[in-house]
C-alpha cells in the first residue's frame, strides 16, 4: 500500500499526540529535582519509598521514605501543580533517616524521593501512585 503524504502527516501528528498524552507531569517537576541537587542527575542507591499503589483519597496519601546515611530527603509529586511536597533535613539527634507523612496528590502520577547523602551525592527512587479522587482542590 502506498503511503500518501496525507497519511504520513496524519501518522506523524498521531504519534506526537500519543507521546504527549498525560502521564501527568507538571512543568518544572524535573527542574525542581535539579534545583535540589544543584544540577546533578541523581543516581540509584539505598533509598526506599513506601507509597500505596492505589490511593483511594488523593487528599491524604501516606508515604514513607527511608534512606540510610542521608543528610536531606526531598519528596516530589511529579504531577501536582507544584511538584515539591516536603524537604527533611536530619540533625545530629536523628535516630534514622526515615520519615513518614501524608501528602496530597492531584491525580495518578509518580512520587519521587531524592536523598542527599553525607558524601554530597544524590540518589533517588520513584513510585507511580494511582489516585481515584484528586486531592488538590481542583
Amino acid at each position: 500500500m502506498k503511503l500518501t503524504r496525507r497519511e504520513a502527516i496524519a501518522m506523524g501528528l498521531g504519534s506526537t499526540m500519543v507521546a504527549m498524552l498525560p502521564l501527568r507531569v507538571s512543568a518544572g517537576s524535573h527542574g525542581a529535582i535539579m534545583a535540589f541537587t544543584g544540577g546533578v542527575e541523581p543516581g540509584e542507591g539505598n533509598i526506599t519509598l513506601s507509597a500505596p499503589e492505589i490511593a483511594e483519597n488523593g487528599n491524604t496519601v501516606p508515604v514513607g521514605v527511608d534512606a540510610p546515611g542521608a543528610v536531606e530527603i526531598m519528596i516530589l509529586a511529579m504531577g501536582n501543580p507544584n511538584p515539591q511536597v516536603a524537604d527533611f533535613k536530619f540533625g545530629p539527634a536523628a535516630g534514622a533517616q526515615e520519615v513518614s507523612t501524608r501528602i496530597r496528590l492531584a491525580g495518578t502520577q509518580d512520587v519521587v524521593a531524592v536523598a542527599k547523602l553525607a558524601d554530597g551525592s544524590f540518589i533517588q527512587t520513584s513510585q507511580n501512585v494511582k489516585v481515584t479522587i484528586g486531592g488538590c482542590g481542583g
Partner: protein
Amino acid sequence: MATGVKPRVKVPKTAAAGDSVTIKTLISHKMESGNRKDKEGNVIPRSIINRFTCDFNGVNVIDMTMYPAISTNPYVEFKAKVDASGEFKFTWYDDDGDIYEAAKSITVS
C-alpha cells in the same frame, strides 16, 4: 491567626541509652493549599504550616519544610536517637507568622 490549631505528639515514656525511638506528631491545621477557589471563583490564598522542627535537649533531630502538598492536619513520623533523659521540643511555623510548640519528656536509663 490560624484558629483551632492543636498539636499532638506521641513519644515513648522510657528508652534505653542509645535507642532510636519513634516519634509521631500530628497538628490540626487546615493547610489551605492556595489551589482552591471559593463560590465566587476567587482563589483562596495559601495558608499552611511551612516548617516543622524537633530538637532533643537542644540538639536538632529533624527540620522539615512543608509545601502545600502536605495533607490537612499534617502527620509526621520520624526517629530520634536518645542517649540521656531529656525533653523533646516540637515547633511548627505557620505562613501567617504563628508558631506552635509542644514538648515531651523521656526518661532514658
